[in-house]
């Protein structure tokens, strides 16, 4: 565990992901190194945000937690059990405790089924109560996400807007009363106005259902808004993890800095900063050695090119994997 000092030793950890590696075969013996050794944990009631550029492995991480697909190696400890080794049957039932919401609200609902049925389905699969109980529960959950249950009984997904579809899939994820909810870019496809509705809804539901969430997005501002902690990913690895406000206030990794600088601010008085980022994102099929960011990092040197940086603490709950962090490391609790 030395390489993952940011994993916390607390009793209320529901989900702990350790050294998660996911690789995909890419034909002709090549592999896509989608996720290469990711560690994080999640305490009850906490929301962890994951940000990063397209292709950095955010979704893969999320799905690997659900064991869809099974990770190449690593542990996914959920409520004390390692999901990686579970039998198919055990996994099926474990999955009811972790749920996922997807980026594309429309394709995550079956176009040929009434949305009410889609929401009721999980209950039917697990035979949670009589048909009447199920109906009552579904109606209640639909109402709590702001969808009229009567309309839901009669309508198919295409009769709802994107935002409504996203609410419906949230409802479907919630009927089984999961303890962890993984949201994979749930608002990226939505308009800002609708995005705000969904973000607020998630906040409300979190309180109502006592959810623990992993929130994946590429928009740092959105992530920051919903998360307690944020992990920044770059090319399959976490490069920085910190409390949301802390990350914004004191970014320690050069990549985090770049990300923050790139975000356009809706304020004409702020002149946009030229982005200090060289070159292109390397291919996940041949990631650079050493620090994966070294090819584009302004302060990269030979060490960065050769040695993989370890996670190191640089503040309270603030960790960075960088040889040359922008913030000087601090001592926490006697450890370096």
């Amino acid at each position, binding site marked *: 565990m030395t390489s993952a000092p940011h994993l916390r030793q607390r009793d209320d950890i529901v989900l702990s992901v350790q050294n998660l590696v996911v690789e995909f075969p890419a034909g002709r013996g090549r592999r896509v190194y989608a996720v290469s050794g990711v560690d994080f944990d999640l305490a009850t009631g906490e929301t962890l945000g994951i940000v990063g550029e397209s292709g950095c492995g955010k979704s893969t991480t999320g799905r690997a937690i659900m064991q869809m697909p099974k990770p190449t190696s690593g542990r996914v400890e959920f409520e004390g059990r390692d999901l990686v080794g579970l039998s198919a049957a055990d996994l099926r039932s474990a999955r009811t405790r972790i749920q996922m919401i997807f980026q594309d609200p429309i394709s995550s609902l079956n176009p040929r089924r009434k949305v009410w049925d889609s929401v009721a389905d999980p209950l039917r699969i697990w035979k949670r109560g009589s048909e009447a109980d199920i109906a009552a529960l579904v109606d209640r959950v639909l109402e709590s996400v702001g969808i009229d249950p009567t309309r839901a009984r009669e309508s198919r997904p295409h009769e709802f807007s994107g935002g409504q579809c996203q609410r419906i899939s949230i409802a479907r994820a919630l009927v089984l009363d999961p303890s962890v909810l993984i949201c994979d870019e749930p608002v990226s496809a939505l308009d800002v106005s609708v995005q705000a509705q969904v973000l607020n809804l998630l*906040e409300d539901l979190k309180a109502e259902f006592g959810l623990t969430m992993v929130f994946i997005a590429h928009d740092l501002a959105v992530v920051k808004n*919903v998360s307690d902690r944020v992990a920044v990913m770059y090319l399959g690895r976490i490069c920085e993890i910190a409390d949301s406000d802390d990350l914004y206030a004191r970014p320690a990794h050069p990549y985090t800095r770049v990300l923050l600088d790139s975000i356009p601010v809706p304020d004409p008085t702020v002149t946009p900063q030229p982005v200090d980022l060289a070159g292109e994102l390397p291919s996940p099929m041949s990631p650079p050695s050493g620090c994966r960011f070294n090819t584009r990092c302004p302060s990269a040197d030979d060490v960065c090119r050769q040695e993989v940086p370890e996670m190191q603490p640089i503040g309270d709950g603030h960790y960075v994997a960088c040889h040359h962090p922008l913030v000087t490391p601090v001592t926490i609790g006697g450890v370096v």
Partner: protein
Amino acid sequence: MTPLQTEHRSDVDPLLQLDDVRTHFKTERGRVRAVDGVSLTLRRGRALGIVGESGSGKTVLSRTIMGLLPSTAEVTGSIRYSGTELIGRGRGGMRGFWGREMSMVFQNPMVSLNPVMKVGEQIAEPLRLHLGMSRSDAKATATRLLTDVRIPEPERRIDQYPHELSGGMRQRVMIAIALACGPSLLFADEPTTALDVTVQAQILELIAEQRRDRNMSVVLVTHDLGVVAGHTDDIAVMYGGKLVETAPTTLLFSEMRMPYTMSLLRSIPRLDDPSHTRLPVIAGRPPDLVAPPSGCRFAPRCAYARERCHQEEPPLVPTSHPDHLYACWYPVGSDEFNEREADLVRSGAVPVAIARGEQK
């Protein structure tokens, strides 16, 4: 370059003048009023941002100006480009403008380049067609253009196919194509939504730079207020096919009048807000453009709307600043508005911080 550009001084007469432009589509469901009476002016060398929610008619408006609409579209009103009327010119009539006078950068660089033609060919095509360049001249020019848009190793790239380039590079290629014949007006329709933030920043920077170097006018279509804030001179806000507010950028942000503009801005999560800040939302969904609501089209979703908003359509009126126009009966800052705002803050729908922060 073309006589049009040398004859007129930039701020004397407008490069583009729209007057009551309406673009309607005939569909099986009825008439879609995608653009419904838009008037606006764009001066030479300036950057205009068009913002609005999805489906508000931004794309249709820019394509109307370009004359790139499907045959189901009906356009009325007047669009004058450097004094020349564009409406009614037909495809053949517009072709002379495309590429040379005005050109366009599309939203998704992944699908806007011909996948089966080499990048170089695609850049060279307008050069050869419009400027009658020889093959080798066109190739040399194409290489130069690639250098201009900051593509490393342009000689190699020119013989590559789009899929061999990253998204950011493809968007640069698109810009190179758009710039090839030295247009006076560049439409950029959400040029960065498909790109990562880091790339987005670079592309926006590139467009701004090219605009300055070439003294072009740019129309930047986007739904992201952050993008327009940093990269435009003027902003036009669209809602439901109509222009609801237009002003120079700084003015708009400091003195926005339209509750819609304000709500839009408020609903964006901001980095400098602490996490878990509650976002004020715009309830409901954008209007159906086949049967738009009567009165103010935003009224059904507007937290500040009153009876009148549902009955009468507000005209576009100027504020004290002649370039700042808005269409609202009870604009931000009016008594009726403030009254409602106070209610909302009290009820918690609008967090105090935001209400205060936005009213500067």
